[in-house]
């Protein structure tokens, strides 16, 4: 078979091939050796690779690759060894850095971007609330304008915030927070307080998740409000698209690793003919997901909005695909697969998050059925 067209799909340019090569060797040498110590909340996204600010403009300290393919490559490669580390990387580089890069003005970029690109500051994004996850626009957090101080007073509680705490004690450094400014929505930027960190999650244990509580936090209007005061819904929807593509890329990384583990295990035990089905179906599904992912990523422009159908679709397919592939890997490896040192049980737990975070499967069903309905009787291409 000529594998050239696949290579081109997965690495469209030399830069992409070099990026994959670089992150893969970093992952092999630095990420993999620590990936099994994931019981405790730890934090180790700090590197001299220039990937924290991957999509941010270079004049503000970023790498200047505003490119969904590059994003996918990094997430796929990191998740091959450590999906939890990758989730924290995603919260920082996509939810915080990329959202700012697309939506903030130059003054804000100059103020906030260099620190979050060089890793001296680590943060994330606060959208979900205790009673507003899938129904995110039902959020209660609010920002009230104070004309005397020309700023907003923020109150509210944000739930399940990745990188909400880095140490288990203090809050992370910088967060984008969505809050209600009235009947419509505003988007606001700040840093603040931490209350509680979860340690006993099903998976993603090495990625800190916290609840953040805001009590009368003052946000200067000039520097700490991103975009139009009532226009943040668009920022949110646009950034959710690349977030979903990145989560799909994590799924592809998890699937590739699970396959490698299954194949290696089976090749030492040639008698295990009954697992052929597990391995072959996993490979076919992995390739289908990976092709869908890069086909979408290669065409996604991060500055646009309206690519929801396939951003939802690729995450919907890949998340469940990764969970199933990890599940089969456990099955193939039997008791070994169920136990920690064989990696695949961790991947299975981590993969489950992808059916929830960044939008539950059901929210994708809802969005996609709606978008497909809009075809108005026109047939698919």
């Amino acid at each position: 078979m000529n594998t050239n067209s696949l290579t081109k799909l997965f690495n469209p340019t030399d830069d992409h091939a070099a990026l994959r090569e670089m992150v893969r060797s970093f992952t092999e040498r630095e990420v993999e050796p620590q990936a099994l110590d994931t019981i405790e909340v730890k934090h180790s996204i700090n590197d001299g690779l220039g990937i924290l600010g991957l999509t941010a403009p270079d004049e503000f300290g970023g790498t200047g690759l505003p490119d969904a393919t590059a994003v996918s490559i990094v997430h796929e490669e990191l998740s091959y060894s450590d999906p939890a580390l990758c989730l924290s990387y995603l919260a920082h580089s996509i939810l915080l850095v990329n959202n700012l890069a697309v939506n903030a003005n130059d003054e804000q970029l100059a103020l906030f971007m260099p620190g979050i690109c060089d890793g001296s500051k680590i943060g994330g994004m606060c959208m979900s609330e205790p009673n507003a996850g899938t129904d995110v626009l039902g959020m209660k957090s609010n920002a009230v304008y104070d004309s005397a101080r020309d700023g907003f007073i923020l109150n509210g509680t944000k739930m399940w915030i990745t990188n909400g705490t880095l140490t288990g004690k203090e809050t992370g450094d910088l967060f984008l927070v969505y809050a209600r400014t009235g009947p419509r929505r505003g988007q606001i930027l700040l840093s603040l307080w931490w209350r509680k960190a979860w340690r006993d999650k099903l998976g993603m244990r090495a990625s800190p998740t916290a609840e953040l509580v805001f009590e009368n936090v003052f946000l200067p209007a000039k520097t700490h409000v991103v975009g139009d005061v009532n226009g943040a819904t668009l920022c949110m929807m646009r950034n959710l698209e690349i977030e979903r593509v990145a989560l799909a890329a994590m799924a592809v990384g998890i699937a590739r690793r699970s396959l490698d583990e299954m194949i290696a295990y089976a090749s030492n035990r040639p008698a295990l003919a009954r697992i052929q089905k597990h391995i072959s179906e996993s490979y076919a599904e992995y390739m289908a997901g990976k092709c869908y992912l890069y086909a979408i990523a290669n065409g996604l422009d991060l500055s646009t909005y309206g690519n929801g159908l396939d951003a939802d679709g690729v995450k919907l397919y890949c998340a469940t695909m990764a969970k199933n592939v990890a599940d089969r890997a456990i099955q193939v490896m039997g008791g070994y697969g169920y136990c920690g040192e064989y990696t695949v049980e961790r991947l299975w737990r981590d993969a489950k998050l992808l059916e929830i975070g960044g939008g539950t499967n059901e929210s994708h069903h809802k969005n996609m059925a709606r978008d497909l309905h809009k075809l108005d009787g026109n047939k698919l291409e």
Partner: protein
Amino acid sequence: MRKILVPIKRVIDYAQKIRVDPSKGAQGVQLKNVKMSMNPFCEIAVEEAIQLKEQNKGAEVVAISVGPKQCTETIRTALAMGADRGIHIETKPDVRGDYIDLQPWAIATLLKGVVEKEDAVDLVLLGKQSIDSDCGQTGPLLAGLLNAPQATFAANIERGDDGSFTVERETDTGTETIKLNASGKPAVITCDLRLNTPRYPTMPNIMKAKKKPVETISLEDMVKELGLDLDEVLTPKNEVVEVYEPPPRKEGETVGSIDELLGKLKEKGLVA
């Protein structure tokens, strides 16, 4: 300091499992569809050259590789790490980059030509060996051909203001310090594992590296340009007779006590 020349070799990646096809005889080590990267000792040499450049403003680091088309990627890695320009002596696609076809003698002969042609080379930094053929000959051969001062297995390198290089080498009996006096010839130093930890090329530097110049010249043209004899350079001096996979490990024996272990070892004549 003027120029530092760093010859780098593209080899099977250190983490790859080597596959041997017994039907191919001496050519049995498979190179197709195998991940290749820069020889780890060459990475150390590139890192050292960049550090020396950082300490000695104005120095130019030139990475050079002999081998097939894909060696350009290896050179780009060196450029992304911080080398200034590259020279690629390109071989025909059917020439193997490992010991079978390109032996240290050929590489050292070519490098000598390049050093003389480049002029103003103060230092040639090489890996102490390449992990595919483990010869460790290229550096010493080059120093011999150039009649230049050399130090092998460097664990530390300092440059003196007088153009000398002080090299520490770790030997079985302790650390040895050698000074390579400035001689008008480039110093030739081969790098050991503990010399430094090579940096990762950052993504911005990978992108900038694309703008750095790489001169590609065919092996045949280079040989002509250097006034060498193609057969003399390319015909391997040594022939690889056989290549085979290490035999699988035999199952061990369990012993009940240290005395029993010693008994068995004595029986086999492994301890006195």
